C-alpha cells in the first residue's frame, strides 16, 4: 500500500504541466533520434544532457528518460523501413522487420513493433515498481565469470541465426570478434592490432561503423542490384481493415512479447549487458521456441515482437541498478548517471530515501512516457509509410547521405566514415557469396564485453577455467549455454548420420 501512495505522489509530480510537456517533447525527439541511423539513445541523451540544466533535476531526468524510451521505439522504425538498425538495440528487429517491409507489410511490422515496445515497457515498469530495491542487490552478485557465462548464453541463443553455410558463419562470427579486439588491450594496457599502424585503429571499431556500413551502404547497394532499378516496396498501405487484422495477428504473439519483456528486463538489470544482448537473446529464444522456426528471417511477426518488447524492457531494467547502486546497466544510463551527478544527486541506495520525489516522479514518468510513445509512434506510421513510397532513386541517395552523416556524428572521426565505406562495400561483396553478415554485427557488440570478462575471471582464479562452472550463478548459465551452443552441431551431425544410413539402406 505504501508503494501505491508513493507512486500516486509520483504521478502528481509527473503530471505537472512542465514535466508533462517535457515528457512529450522527449518522446518525439527520441523517436527521431532513434529512427536516424547512427544516432541512438546514447547519442541523444549525451547530446541533449547539457541543455537540461535549465530545468529542475526531476524534470530533466524525465525528459531524458522519455527520450531514451522514444529512441527505443524509433530504432525499430529505421530497422523496418530502411533495413538499417537505428541503434545497436534494434539490430534484431531488422531480421524479420525488414522482410515484412519488403513484402509490403511495413504497417504490420511497425504496429507490431510499437505495441510490443509498449507491452515491454509497461510490463517492465510494473516490475520495476514492485521489485526495485530487492532486485537491485542481485546486480552486485554478478562478477566477471557470471558476465562471461551470460555472453556465451547470448551467443548460444543466437546460433539459430546462422546461414546455411557453416564455414562462412564461423568466419563471420570470428571476424566480428577480431574487429572488436582492435585498438587497445585493456588488461595489459598495450596497443593491440593497430592495423597498418594507422592512428585510427588505436581505438576499437565502433559497432555503429560496422552496422551503418553493412546495413546502410552495403544493404543499399544490394537492393539497387537486386531491384534492377524497380521500386521494391511500394505496396505498403494503412487502412482500418488491415490494421484490425494486423492487431489480431499481433495479439496472437502474446507469448513472444511476454517472454521478450521478462527476458529483456532481467538482462537489462545486469550491469554491462543492456538492451542489445537482451533483444538478441529474446529473438533467439522466440525462434527456438516457435513451432515453425523456419519462418524466422522471412518475416515472422514474433521476430519483430520479441526483440522490441525486450529492448524497451531492458531500457527500463537498466535504470534500476543506476538508481539504486549507481551502476549503469547500459551506455545510455552511464550518461544519465553522469547527468545525475551534475544535478547534485548521489545515486545509490539512499536515493530512494532522500529523494523520493525524484525517484517516484521518474518511475511515474516512465508509465506516462510509454503511453505517449506508443500513441505518437502509431500516429506517425502513415507518415513513415508515405516515406516508403518515394522513388528508390531518391530514397537511396538520401540513405547514403544519412549513413555518412550518421556515421560521422556517432564518433566524429572521418576515419570512421572511410572505414564504414570499406566495410559496407566489402560486406556487400561478401554477402553476394552467401557470407551471413548478422553474426559479425552481433560479435562486434558482444566481443568487447566477453573478452575482458573471460580474462579478468581467469586472472582472479589464477588461470583456472573451472570458475565458469563451479560458481553458483555462473555454473548453470554456462551449462545451459554450452548445451544450446552445441545443439545445432549435434542435430546437424545426427541428421547427416540419419540421411547417410537411409541412403545406405536405400
Amino acid at each position, binding site marked *: 500500500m505504501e508503494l501505491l501512495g508513493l507512486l500516486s505522489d509520483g504521478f502528481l509530480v509527473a503530471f505537472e504541466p512542465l514535466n508533462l510537456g517535457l515528457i512529450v517533447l522527449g518522446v518525439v525527439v527520441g523517436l527521431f533520434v532513434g529512427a536516424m541511423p547512427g544516432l541512438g539513445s546514447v547519442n541523444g541523451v549525451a547530446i541533449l544532457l547539457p541543455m537540461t*540544466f535549465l530545468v529542475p533535476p526531476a524534470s530533466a531526468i524525465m525528459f531524458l528518460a522519455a527520450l531514451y524510451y522514444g529512441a527505443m521505439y524509433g530504432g525499430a522504425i529505421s530497422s523496418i523501413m530502411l533495413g538499417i538498425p537505428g541503434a545497436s538495440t534494434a539490430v534484431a528487429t531488422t531480421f524479420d522487420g525488414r522482410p515484412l517491409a519488403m513484402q509490403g507489410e511495413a504497417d504490420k511490422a511497425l504496429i507490431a513493433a510499437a505495441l510490443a515496445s509498449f507491452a515491454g515497457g509497461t510490463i517492465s515498469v510494473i516490475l520495476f515498481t514492485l521489485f526495485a530495491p530487492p532486485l537491485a542487490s542481485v546486480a552486485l552478485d554478478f562478477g566477471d565469470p557470471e558476465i562471461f557465462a551470460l555472453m556465451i548464453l547470448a551467443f548460444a541463443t543466437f546460433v539459430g541465426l546462422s546461414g546455411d553455410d557453416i564455414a562462412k558463419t564461423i568466419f563471420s562470427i570470428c571476424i566480428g570478434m577480431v574487429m572488436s579486439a582492435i585498438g587497445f588491450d*585493456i588488461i595489459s594496457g598495450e596497443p593491440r592490432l593497430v592495423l597498418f599502424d594507422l592512428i585510427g585503429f588505436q581505438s576499437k571499431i565502433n559497432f555503429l561503423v560496422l552496422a551503418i556500413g553493412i546495413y546502410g551502404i552495403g544493404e543499399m547497394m544490394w537492393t539497387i542490384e537486386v531491384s534492377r532499378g524497380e521500386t521494391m516496396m511500394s505496396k505498403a498501405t494503412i487502412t482500418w481493415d488491415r490494421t484490425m487484422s494486423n492487431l489480431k495477428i499481433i495479439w496472437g504473439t502474446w507469448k513472444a512479447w511476454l517472454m521478450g519483456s521478462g527476458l529483456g528486463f532481467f538482462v537489462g538489470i545486469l550491469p554491462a549487458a543492456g538492451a542489445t544482448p537482451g533483444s538478441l537473446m529474446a529473438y533467439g529464444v522466440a525462434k527456438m521456441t516457435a513451432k515453425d522456426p523456419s519462418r524466422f528471417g522471412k518475416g515472422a511477426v514474433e521476430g519483430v515482437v520479441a526483440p522490441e518488447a525486450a529492448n524497451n524492457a531492458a531500457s527500463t531494467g537498466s535504470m534500476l541498478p543506476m538508481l539504486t547502486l549507481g551502476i549503469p546497466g547500459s551506455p545510455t544510463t552511464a550518461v544519465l548517471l553522469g547527468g545525475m551527478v551534475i544535478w547534485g544527486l548521489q545515486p545509490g541506495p539512499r536515493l530512494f530515501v532522500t529523494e523520493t520525489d525524484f525517484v517516484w516522479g521518474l518511475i511515474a514518468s516512465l508509465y506516462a512516457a510509454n503511453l505517449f510513445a506508443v500513441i505518437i509512434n502509431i500516429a506517425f506510421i502513415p507518415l513513415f509509410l508515405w516515406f516508403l513510397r518515394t522513388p528508390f532513386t531518391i530514397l537511396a541517395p538520401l540513405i547514403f547521405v544519412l549513413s555518412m552523416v550518421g556515421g560521422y556524428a556517432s564518433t566524429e572521426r572521418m576515419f570512421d566514415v572511410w572505414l564504414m565505406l570499406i566495410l559496407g562495400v566489402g560486406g556487400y561483396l561478401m554477402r553476394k557469396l552467401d557470407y551471413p553478415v548478422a553474426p559479425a554485427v552481433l560479435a562486434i557488440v558482444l566481443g568487447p564485453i566477453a573478452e575482458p570478462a573471460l580474462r*579478468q575471471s581467469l586472472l582472479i582464479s589464477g588461470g583456472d577455467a573451472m570458475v565458469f562452472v563451479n560458481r553458483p550463478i555462473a555454473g548453470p548459465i554456462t551449462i545451459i549455454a554450452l548445451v544450446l551452443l552445441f545443439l545445432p552441431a549435434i542435430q546437424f551431425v545426427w541428421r547427416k548420420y540419419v540421411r547417410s544410413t537411409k541412403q545406405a539402406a536405400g
Partner: protein
Amino acid sequence: MKTIFRKLLGVGIAAGLVTGFTAVTGKTALAWEPVKPIQFVVMAGKGGGADKLARLIQSIIEKHKLSSKPVTPINKPGGSGAEALVYMKNHKDADHAIMVTLNSFYTTPMRQPRLGVDPLTFAPIARMAEDTFLLWVNKDSGIKNVDEFVAAAKAAGNKWIMAGTGKASEDNLLTDFLNAAYGLNMKYVPYKGGGKVAKQLAGNHANSTVNNPSEQLGFYEAGKTVALAAFTDERLPLFKDAPTFKELGKDFVYYMQRSVVGAPGMSADAQAFYQGVFKKVYDTPEWQTYMKKKSLQGELLQGDALMAYWKRENEVHRKMLIKMGAIKG
C-alpha cells in the same frame, strides 16, 4: 517527410535564436574571441570521470555564458589517450581546440614514443583540481585500518585481488607502491574505468581498490565500503577517519591532475581568453561545490605555474614508469 523537415527546421531555428541571443549578450570588446564552436576533447570514453568533468564544465560555461561560442565535448578514447593527444597535436585550428587531461597526459607519450607527442608543447590553460586516491576495502571484510589490511593481504598472498583501471595506470602505480612498502603480493586485475572497479569491490569480487572518492562515494555512503587511508598530504575533510600514508610513516603522496590544455601552437591571445574563461569557471559556486562534494584538492594553476607543475610531474612519472619496468630509462 516534408512535415518532419518543417518541424526540424522550426526546432533548429528556435534553438538557433535562443543560443544566438546568448552569444550577443556575452560579448566583450576587442579581446580575442572564438569565431566558431570550441572542441573540448576528452581523453576517455563517454560516461567516465574525465567525460563527466568535461560535461560539467561545458554546462557551467553555458549557464554563466562565459564563452560566446559553445564548448562541445568530443570523446577520443583510443589507446589510453594516444588518439586524443595525436588529434590535438595535428589539429589544424589550434585556437579552437582544448582538452581535459589526466595523468595519462604524461605516461601515454612515454609508453608510446612512436606517437611523437611531447606534453610540454601543449598550451597550459588551467589545472582545475587534483583528484585524490584512497585505499578501500569492502565493509564485510571487517578490516578497519591499514594494519589489519596488511595482515589480511599478507595471509592471502597472491589470492588478494586489487582491482584497478588498466595496467601501468595510476591505480597500478599505487598498487606497486603498497606491495613494495608493506611486502605484499597482491594480484592486480585491470578493469575498464573507475566505476567498474568500484563495483567489483562493492560486490566482493575484489578485495581492495585505490579508487578516487567520486567513484567510491555512492558505496561508501551506503555503508558498503570503507576508506582505510589516503594518498594525500593531509586528511580529507570527507574522510576524517582515514589517516594519510604520511602519518603511517610511508611518505607517499599521489594525485591525479584534472587540467585543461590547449592544442600545441595555440596563439597567446587565445590562451589568454581560455585562461580567463577557466578562471571564471573555477570561481563559480557550482565548481566549488563540486570540488567539495567529490573531495577534490588543489587550487587553480595557470600559465607558467602550470607549466612548471607539468615539468615536475612529468619527471616524477618518468621515474615511476622506469621503476615499474614499463619503459626503459
